[in-house]
C-alpha cells in the first residue's frame, strides 16, 4: 500500500513541480535547511548540558508546532484520504499507506536533518546516549508527521464554520507576528544561555511529547534505565494511538459543516428601493457576515494589528499602539485584495446587467469601509490615548490608509484577479483557494504608497516645528483617501466593464485566454496583463527603495556628507535612520525578487509553451472547454 501511494505521490509531484511551485519548494527547502542547521548548532551550544537539553526541547516543540500549523497555510496534502474513499482498502491500512507517503517530501527531509540535533547532542553525552537517540529520532519524526496530518483534518473541518474561521484567523495572525518578531527569541536566547530556564518552565517544556526523546537521551547518560525506556515507550504508544485516531477520522467527513441561515422573508425584502449601489452594499455586508473566508479576513486584520502593537510592551514600549488602527486597515486591504476572485464566476450576473459595474464597485467599497472603518478608528483612538502622544501621525495614517485601501482594494481585485475554485464547489474546504500572495503584496505596497502624502505633511510639520501643519496631516489623509476612493474605484469599475468577459473566462478556465504565440514573441508581451503590471510595479518600487532611499543615504551616513534632499531616512531622528535605511533596502530587494520571480516563471512558461507547440504539429491537444 505505502509503496503504491509513494509512487503515486512522486508522480503527482513530478507533474506539479514545474513553474512557481518549484521556486517556492526550493526556497522553502533552503530556508528550512538553514533553520535545521541552526537547530543542530544549538545542540553544540556552549552551556550546561541541562540548559542545552531545555533549549533543544523548546526548538523541537517549535518544529512540531510548525508542522501542525503548516497545513493551515499550505493547503491540502498531495494525497487525500477522500480520493481513496471508494477503494476497497481497510482504513488502518490506508492510514499507514498515507503515512508512508507523507514521509516523502522536502519538509520531512529538512525536519530529519533538524532532528539529528538530538544525535549530535547525544554524542556529547556518550555512546549509550547515541544508541538511544536513534529510535528517539525516528519516533519523534513520525510523531510530527502524524500531528501535521491530524491538524490538517482538524483545521479543514474548523475552517468550514465561522467560529472556526475566526480561530484560524487568530492563529494565522499570531504566526505572522511571531515570524516577524524572531529577533525577540535571540534576545531571550542570550539571557537563557547564561542563566538557564527556570525550574517551572523547564518542567512544562519537558512534559511535551516532542521533548520525550531528549529526556531519554539525557537519562541514558545517567544510566537511569527507567527514564530511558519510559519516555520511548510512551512516545511509541502515542504514535500508535495517533495512527489509530487518524484511521478513524479518515472516513467520510464526520465533522458536519454548520449551516448558516439567511434572513426571513420579511427581512430579506427590506432596503429594496434605494438603487443598485445599496443592493450591492446589502449583499456584501451580508456576505462578510456569512462567509467563513470573509470572517477570517475580518478577524485576521485586527488580530494581527493588536498583536503587533502589544509585542513591544514586553520592552515597556507603547510606541506602536497609536498605529494599531492603521495596521488594521492596511491588513484589511491586503487580505481582501482578491474579492472578485473569491466570488468566482458570480461575476456573470454583473456582466448581464451592463451599466451596474460602478454600483458593484461602490457597494463593495462601502461594505468594506463599514466593517473596517469604525474598527480602525476606534483602535486608533484607544491606542493613541494609551500612548498619550503621536496623535497627528496616528490620525493621518489611519484616514489615508482607510481611503487608499477602499480605492485600491477593488482595483487590485480586478487587475490582479487570482482564480480559485467557485465558492459553491469548495464549500467543504474553504482553505482550498487560489494563491493570493501576488495581489496581497501589490495591495500592501500600493496602499502604503497612497498613505505617503499625508504622512509627509505630518513629517514636514514635525521638522519645521509647525504644530498646525502636523495636524493638517489628518485632513490631508481624509483628502487623499477620498480621492483614492473616488478615482481608483471609478478606474476599477471602468476596467471591470472593459474586461468583464475576459475576467469571467479567467475564472471559468482557471487561466487567461492565450493569444497566438510565435518564437519572436517577447516574454513581457506574452505574459498575462496582471503579471506585466506586477512586474513593472515591483521593478519601479525596487528601484526607488533600493537606490535613492536605501543605498544613497547609506553612503551619505557612511561618508558623513549628508544632503537630505528627498531621502526619507535622513529626515528622521538619529535613532530611526539606520532602521529606516534597512527597511528600505529590505523592501527594495524583496520587490526586485518579486519582479525577477515573475520574469523567470513567465519566460519558463513561454518557453515550455513554444516547445510544446513545436512538438505538437500533430493532432490537437484536448481543448479547455468552458463550462
Amino acid at each position, binding site marked *: 500500500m505505502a509503496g503504491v501511494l509513494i509512487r503515486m505521490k512522486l508522480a503527482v509531484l513530478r507533474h506539479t513541480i514545474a513553474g512557481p511551485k518549484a521556486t517556492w519548494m526550493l526556497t522553502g527547502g533552503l530556508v528550512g535547511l538553514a533553520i535545521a542547521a541552526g537547530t543542530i548548532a544549538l545542540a553544540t551550544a556552549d552551556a550546561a548540558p541541562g540548559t542545552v537539553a531545555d533549549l533543544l526541547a523548546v526548538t523541537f516543540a517549535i518544529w512540531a508546532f510548525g508542522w501542525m500549523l503548516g497545513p493551515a497555510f499550505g493547503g491540502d496534502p498531495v494525497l487525500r484520504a477522500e480520493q481513496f474513499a471508494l477503494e476497497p482498502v481497510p482504513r488502518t491500512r490506508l492510514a499507514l499507506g498515507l503515512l508512508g507517503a507523507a514521509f516523502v517530501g522536502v519538509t520531512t527531509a529538512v525536519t530529519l536533518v533538524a532532528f539529528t540535533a538530538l544525535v549530535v547532542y547525544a554524542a556529547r553525552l556518550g555512546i549509550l546516549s547515541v544508541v538511544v537517540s536513534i529510535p528517539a529520532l525516528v519516533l519523534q519524526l513520525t510523531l510530527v508527521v502524524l500531528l501535521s496530518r491530524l491538524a490538517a483534518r482538524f483545521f479543514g473541518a474548523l475552517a468550514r464554520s465561522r467560529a472556526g474561521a475566526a480561530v484560524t484567523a487568530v492563529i494565522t495572525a499570531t504566526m505572522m507576528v511571531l515570524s516577524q518578531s524572531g529577533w525577540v527569541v535571540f534576545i531571550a536566547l542570550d539571557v537563557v544561555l547564561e542563566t538557564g530556564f527556570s525550574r517551572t518552565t523547564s518542567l512544562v517544556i519537558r512534559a511535551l511529547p516532542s521533548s520525550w526523546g531528549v529526556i531519554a537521551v539525557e537519562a541514558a547518560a545517567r544510566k537511569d534505565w527507567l527514564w530511558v525506556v519510559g519516555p520511548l515507550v510512551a512516545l511509541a504508544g502515542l504514535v500508535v494511538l495517533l495512527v489509530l485516531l487518524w484511521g478513524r477520522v479518515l472516513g467520510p467527513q464526520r465533522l458536519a459543516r454548520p*449551516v*448558516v*441561515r*439567511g*434572513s*426571513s*422573508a420579511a427581512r*430579506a*425584502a427590506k432596503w*429594496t*428601493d*434605494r*438603487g*443598485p449601489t*445599496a*443592493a*450591492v452594499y*446589502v*449583499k456584501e455586508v*451580508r*456576505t462578510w457576515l*456569512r*462567509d467563513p473566508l470573509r470572517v477570517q479576513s475580518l478577524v485576521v486584520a485586527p488580530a494581527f494589528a493588536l498583536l503587533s502593537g502589544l509585542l513591544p510592551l514586553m520592552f515597556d514600549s507603547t510606541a506602536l499602539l497609536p498605529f494599531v488602527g492603521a495596521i488594521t486597515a492596511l491588513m484589511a486591504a491586503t487580505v481582501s485584495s482578491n474579492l472578485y476572485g473569491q*466570488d*468566482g*464566476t*458570480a461575476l*456573470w*450576473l454583473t*456582466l*448581464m*446587467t*451592463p*451599466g*451596474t459595474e460602478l*454600483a458593484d464597485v461602490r457597494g463593495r467599497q462601502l461594505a468594506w469601509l463599514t466593517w473596517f472603518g469604525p474598527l480602525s478608528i476606534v483602535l486608533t483612538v484607544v491606542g493613541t490615548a494609551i500612548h498619550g502622544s503621536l496623535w497627528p501621525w496616528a490620525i493621518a495614517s489611519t484616514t489615508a490608509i482607510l481611503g487608499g485601501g477602499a480605492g485600491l482594494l477593488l482595483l487590485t481585485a480586478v487587475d490582479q484577479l487570482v482564480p480559485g475554485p*467557485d*465558492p*459553491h464547489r469548495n*464549500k467543504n474546504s474553504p482553505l482550498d483557494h487560489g494563491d493570493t500572495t501576488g495581489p496581497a503584496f501589490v495591495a500592501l505596497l500600493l496602499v502604503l504608497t497612497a498613505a505617503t502624502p499625508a504622512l509627509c505633511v505630518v513629517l514636514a510639520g514635525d521638522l519645521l516645528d509647525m504644530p498646525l501643519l502636523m495636524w493638517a496631516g489628518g485632513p490631508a489623509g481624509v483628502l487623499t483617501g477620498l480621492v483614492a476612493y473616488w478615482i481608483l474605484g471609478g478606474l476599477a469599475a471602468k476596467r471591470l466593464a472593459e474586461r468583464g*468577459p*475576459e475576467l*469571467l*473566462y479567467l475564472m*471559468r478556465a482557471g487561466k487567461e*485566454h*492565450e493569444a*497566438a504565440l510565435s518564437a519572436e514573441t517577447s516574454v513581457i508581451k506574452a505574459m498575462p496583463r496582471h503579471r506585466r503590471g506586477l512586474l513593472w510595479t515591483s521593478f519601479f518600487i525596487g528601484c526607488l527603495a533600493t537606490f535613492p532611499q536605501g543605498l544613497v543615504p547609506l553612503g551619505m551616513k557612511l561618508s558623513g556628507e549628508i544632503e537630505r534632499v528627498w531621502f526619507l531616512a535622513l529626515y528622521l531622528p538619529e535613532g530611526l535612520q539606520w532602521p529606516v535605511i534597512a527597511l528600505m533596502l529590505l523592501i527594495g530587494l524583496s520587490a526586485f525578487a518579486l519582479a525577477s520571480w515573475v520574469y523567470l516563471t513567465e519566460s519558463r512558461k513561454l518557453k515550455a509553451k513554444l516547445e510544446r*507547440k513545436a512538438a505538437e504539429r500533430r493532432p*490537437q*491537444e484536448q*481543448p*479547455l*472547454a*468552458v*463550462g
Partner: protein
Amino acid sequence: MNAVQPRVEDGTAALRLLGLHKVFGEYTAVDHADLTVAPGSFYGLVGPNGAGKTTALSMAVGLLRPDEGRSEVFGVDVWADPLAARKLMGVLPDGLALPERLTGRELLTYLGQLRGLDAKTVADRATELLDVMELSGDAERTLVVDYSTGMRKKIGLATALLHGPRLLVLDEPFEAVDPVSAATIKRILNRFVAGGGSVLLSSHVMALVEQLCDTVAVMAKGRVVAEGPLDQVRGAASLEDTFVELVGVKVGGGEGLSWLAS
C-alpha cells in the same frame, strides 16, 4: 428591467447567431456558427460533450467575447448595445456561481434592484417565483450555497425570469436535476412559450429535446451540422439515431470487457 421594453419589429428573429467564431489557443471551439431562433419557438440545441454548445451560447448572450461574428436579440446587437439586448433576454448558464451567501429571496431582491425594477414589483415577483419553484417555506432561510443541484437550477431559472424577458437562453437546464424539479421546470418553460416567449436550450438528452422542442439544431466539433423543425431534422428515425448519424461517431461499448460480470 424597466417597464418600457425596447421596440421590436415584428418578424425579427428572437435570437440570431451570425458566423460566431471562437478559437482557444489552437483549438477551434466554435466554427462560424449560424442559428436562428424564431419568435415563439421552443428551440433545442443538441450535441456531444465538447461540441461547443456552451461556448456558442456564452458568446450569444455576451458572456464570452467572440473572435468573429455577431449575435442579435430581436434585432438588437448583443455586443454593440448590451443594455437593450439584455433587457430582452433571461440567461441560465451551466455551473456558474451566484452570490452564494444569500437566500433565494435575498438574491432575487438584489437582482431586481440591480435591474432597476421598483420595490413592489420585485417583492411580488420574488414571492411568486419562489412559490412556483418551491423555494419558499422550509427553504426560505437556506443560503444558495447550501442548495441542492435541482434547487440551484430552479433559482437560476427564477433569476432569468425575474425581469420578464421575451427570450430565455438556458444552458443544460436539466443537467443533474431530479425528476420532480425537472417537471416543474418543464411546466414553467411550456407556459412561457405558450404565452408568446421564445426558449433556446442546450442539452445532450435527446428524449427531452424531442419531448419539449419544436425546432432543433445539432452541433458537432464546433459546427452547426443540422438545423430545422424537429420532424424535418429527425425524419423517420428517432432524434438519437439521426444525431449519431449526423455527428458521425462510432458508438463505443461493444468490445472488450469480457471479464465483466462473468
